[in-house]
């Protein structure tokens, strides 16, 4: 049976997906519009086996394990494994775009960890050539501040920011990972110039944070899926080095567009 391929590139890292179902490929083309690219040397490739029923009883928590260089990921709606060194993997899932989304987040968190980068629970946007990150847990205001963004701001995501390190500079890259806004970010990148931790309040104000507080908050909002010693150490190191180079502040804001006058 013919295999249908699609390459999804996020943050400059292409991941190749293969499926025997052309309708599923079409579904992915639609879901990842703006992040599809032609043939490329991908770091990871996956064969997708489509199931008629969920892989296992429903469980909302993603479980990721690493043994002997094999990453195994599972949730109620999918089971996947990948050889981290070779980059070849397999996904078993039903025909939906959400399972792939979770696998891609996990895979990109691994790719970034190798390079000193990370995925962060945050909205991000480019303004005047620099990228701003707005981090916080659910309800902190990521989607709200994204909705309030002025026309000159390029929204990279309202949910999961992609932080890539190149030399001494950290870049925020657009992602298709969306939150309540339910639309992909723009596929572009810019050097990160500031990290804000969001908080709703009765006025707009920016306050400084101690380095220890900033590190604690950054780690709390960083996505890492596996209780893997090597990975945890890399993430910790990456977070510390990021804060050595990027100022972190607390942004308290009212839900109106005036807050963006403080972000430029």
């Amino acid at each position, binding site marked *: 049976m013919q295999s249908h391929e699609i390459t999804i590139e996020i943050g400059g890292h292409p991941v190749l997906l293969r499926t025997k179902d052309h309708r599923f490929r079409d579904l992915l083309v639609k879901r990842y519009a703006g992040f599809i690219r032609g043939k490329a040397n991908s770091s990871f490739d996956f064969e997708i086996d489509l199931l008629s029923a969920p892989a296992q009883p429903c469980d909302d928590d993603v479980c990721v394990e690493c043994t002997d260089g094999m990453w195994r990921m599972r949730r109620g709606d999918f089971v996947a494994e990948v050889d981290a060194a070779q980059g070849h993997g397999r996904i078993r899932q039903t025909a939906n775009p959400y399972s792939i989304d979770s696998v891609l987040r996990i895979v990109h968190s691994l790719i970034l960890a190798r390079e000193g980068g990370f995925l962060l629970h945050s909205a991000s946007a480019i303004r005047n050539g620099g990228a701003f990150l707005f981090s916080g847990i659910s309800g902190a205001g990521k989607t709200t501040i994204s909705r309030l963004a002025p026309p000159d701001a390029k929204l990279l995501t309202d949910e999961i920011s992609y932080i890539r390190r190149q030399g001494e500079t950290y870049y925020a890259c657009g992602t298709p990972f969306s939150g309540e806004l339910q639309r992909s970010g723009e596929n572009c990148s810019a050097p990160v110039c500031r990290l804000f931790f969001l908080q709703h309040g009765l006025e707009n104000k920016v306050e400084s944070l*101690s*380095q*220890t507080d900033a*590190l*604690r908050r950054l*780690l709390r909002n960083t996505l*890492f899926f596996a*209780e893997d*010693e*090597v990975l*945890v*150490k890399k993430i*910790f*190191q990456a977070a*510390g*080095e990021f804060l050595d180079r990027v100022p972190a502040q607390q942004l308290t804001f009212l839900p109106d567009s005036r807050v963006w006058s403080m972000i430029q």
Partner: protein
Amino acid sequence: MSDKYIARSAAIASRMLAGEMMVMSAVDSTFFTLNEVATAIWQAADGQTPLSQIVAEKVCAEFDVDPETARQDAQQFVEELSRHGILLISDDPLDTVQSPTEAA
């Protein structure tokens, strides 16, 4: 009570920031911020120096604290960190462990 020896686990990542040591367990991602006194004990935890000697030389000699309070606080501190696998405690000297990931 017999003297104890303490050593930093290899399964941690740590970083000194503004005079405070930030330590994270690589096993369960538990995160600790150590104050100055705890940092002094942490840095002296080489597996070879008895805890009583660390308290005498690194705590009582450097900070304004009475020996009995320092001893009790140190005991409590090392027991808490050992529960998270961050510090190793033994009745005998411990072999030097791999240096943790640490940045100044």
